[in-house]
């Protein structure tokens, strides 16, 4: 084994141990405390049932919207596909707090749309479904859209030439090709919804809508009952892990789209039909996605003057510093794992490295936070204001996406490039420093931005470890919402959004 492979193996192994040990401890606690707990089991069952119910419904609703949008965008000629694609990228990375805030603003009793339907009320099922739809339609849109783009249309042409109408062609040919990506997306979104915290906490609006994730938070922060938190986290973990096994490729969501392979088959043949599809698509897209974003900019923009510049600068500095730590740790871990997955000879080891690198998808920040605190309570005080605990949790949550970025880039380096460099005398370290690192420059930037973006928007780990001191934008926003200062909250939301957009723009400019 070469030295670099050895060093990266140690790094990845240590990270895996740090990840697995708290979770194992969680299960041990689960097995030992179930008999001694005096909780109301009916309440626990209701919470578990609600968690699964909302996740199932949300995944289904997001699936219908996301798949329909993907199909319309990539199989017909709807104007504005690029805008939808870019916005779907933005919604995927948008902090849940901002989304919750914007949804209340648009769909709440006094909101832009909600005031026309005062009886419906955004808090409860409507809010939860809208919140999850906002985030998760993009998972379907991207995965299903990509398989539509990549699939050749020869079979469809044959089916059409044999006399099948377009519905038959869709169900018997096209759907069969995209079925796998629909199922993968479903399980991935199911995991995201199972571990959804902020949307349920804010838009659920009451104890009836308490999910496991919210219950874990309450057990730790309100009841100070770590044993109960461990029990809840174990149940949550179990569900997520099973869903993760079904989803198979939890880190499949790509950042960009690959180019189209074939021509359109399902294009409307009449001008009226085309216009109708265009109108319906954009109406729903505006209602669900655009309007909340516009609301935030309009309301937040006008309230920015209410914030003190010192607070803004202090928060910006704290958020960026924390984000950079997270980005560096997650990128280093992801790079190490992707390097191992590329260079290990044994296919079995490669598969294990890949599997364990995307495993954190199945573990929400709240669950891992609970596991970490149960396993080593001193993590709460590690670094100033529990910062390193937050860094560890956020870095692990960014790991699957960063790993995906690196492993995809590693796979693009042809064997011949390695062979050429080696035949010219390059050692393993020279190969790393003079071939791989320069070739992966964009991926490194991309991974760092991803880590930074995830950290900026994350709130669960920060709430578990927070103190009254410095806060990130997300925590500031959360505190303002808790005090019902929605004007200021909107302003902080816009600042957070603006920071994230700036970071993504910098990344885009590096890449091009």
């Amino acid at each position, binding site marked *: 084994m070469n030295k670099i492979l050895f060093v990266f193996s140690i790094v990845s192994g240590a990270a895996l141990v740090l990840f697995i040990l708290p979770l194992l401890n969680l299960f041990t606690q689960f097995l030992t405390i179930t008999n001694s707990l005096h909780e109301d089991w009916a309440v626990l069952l209701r919470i578990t049932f609600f968690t699964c119910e909302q996740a199932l419904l949300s995944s289904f609703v997001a699936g219908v919207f996301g798949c329909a949008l993907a199909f319309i965008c990539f199989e017909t000629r709807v104007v504005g596909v690029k805008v939808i694609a870019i916005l779907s990228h933005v919604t995927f990375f948008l902090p849940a707090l901002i989304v919750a805030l914007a949804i209340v603003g648009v769909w709440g009793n006094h909101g832009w749309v909600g005031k026309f339907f005062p009886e419906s009320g955004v808090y409860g099922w409507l809010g939860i479904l809208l919140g999850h739809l906002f985030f998760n339609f993009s998972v379907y849109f991207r995965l299903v859209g990509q398989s539509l783009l990549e699939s050749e249309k020869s079979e469809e042409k044959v089916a059409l030439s044999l006399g099948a109408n377009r519905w038959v062609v869709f169900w018997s040919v096209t759907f069969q090709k995209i079925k796998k990506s629909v199922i993968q997306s479903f399980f991935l979104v199911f995991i995201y919804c199972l571990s959804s915290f902020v949307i349920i906490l804010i838009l659920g609006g009451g104890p009836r809508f308490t999910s496991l994730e919210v219950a874990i938070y309450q057990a730790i922060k309100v009841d100070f009952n770590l044993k109960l938190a461990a029990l809840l986290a174990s149940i949550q973990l179990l569900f997520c892990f099973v869903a993760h096994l079904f989803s198979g490729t939890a880190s499949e969501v790509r950042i960009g789209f690959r180019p189209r392979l074939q021509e359109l088959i399902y294009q409307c043949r009449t001008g009226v039909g085309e216009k109708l599809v265009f109108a319906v698509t954009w109406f729903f897209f505006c209602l669900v996605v655009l309007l909340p974003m516009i609301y935030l900019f309009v309301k937040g923009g006008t309230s920015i003057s209410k914030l003190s510049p010192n607070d803004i600068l202090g928060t910006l500095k704290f958020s960026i510093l924390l984000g950079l730590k997270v980005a560096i740790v997650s990128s280093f871990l992801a790079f190490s794992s992707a390097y191992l997955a590329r260079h290990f000879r044994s296919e079995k080891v490669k598969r294990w490295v890949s599997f364990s690198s995307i495993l954190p998808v199945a573990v929400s920040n709240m669950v891992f936070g609970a596991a970490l605190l149960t396993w080593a309570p001193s993590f709460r005080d590690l670094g100033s204001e529990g910062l390193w605990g937050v860094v560890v949790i956020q870095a692990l949550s960014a790991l699957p996406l960063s790993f995906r970025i690196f492993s995809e880039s590693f796979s693009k380096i042809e064997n011949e490039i390695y062979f050429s460099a*080696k035949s010219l005398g390059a050692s393993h370290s*020279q190969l790393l420093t003079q071939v791989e690192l320069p070739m992966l420059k964009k991926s490194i930037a991309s991974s760092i931005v991803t880590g930074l973006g995830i950290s900026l928007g994350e709130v669960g780990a920060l709430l578990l470890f927070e103190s009254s001191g410095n806060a990130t934008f997300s925590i500031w926003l959360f505190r303002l919402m808790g005090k019902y200062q929605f004007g200021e909250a909107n302003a902080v939301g816009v600042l957070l959004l603006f920071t994230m957009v700036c970071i993504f723009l910098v990344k885009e400019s590096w890449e091009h």
Partner: protein
Amino acid sequence: MHFFGERVMGTLTIKNLRVGRDSFQIFVKNISVQSGSILGVVGKSGSGKSTLLNAIAGFETLSEGEIHFNDTNLSSLPPEQRRIAIVFQRPALFPHLTVLGNVCFGLKIKKHSESVQKELAIPWLKKLGIADLADRYPHSLSGGEAQRVAIARALVVGFPILLLDEPFSGLDVELKSGARKALKELVDELKLAAILVSHDPTDIEELADEVCTLEKGQISGWLKKKS
């Protein structure tokens, strides 16, 4: 022509070489290639031609057998210490480096100063007709230009052995003819021991001094032997 390292001449000898797993193995009993000559290897797809080159270069682990250059046993050395240059069907240029950067790569690895790198590389760029492309990046090169860069990169380091894995297959007829001529001259001039794998009978006809046919991983015959 300048090149890095001392000019070593001799014979590349391959004895009882066995590579591969249960499903596919190649076994080569005896091959020798002298400096200044080209051995052509032909065979159907999947017959093991590229595996043979990869084994000689050190990218495949040998199950048994030995590869020698003069008295040096190469089989025990890692690829980076064998001093065997290789040119693939695809140019495999480093996309983050310019043409000059690509050609200088092997020299940089040996920690030569930038001025020495240029001094050694530029004559090769001129000889292969790519001097005016020195500052261009691989993505802006045509297939023929990229392949010439790959050849320059392989030759500038002055290794005594050159392996060519279908190096002309991406070129059009006119370019192929020029590239063959240039390669033949270079092998003669530098006294390289070269092995050429190709599907194209014209490549073999024009370049090879000896030709062996591989079939299911074994040499089934020596097709042509020039005296």
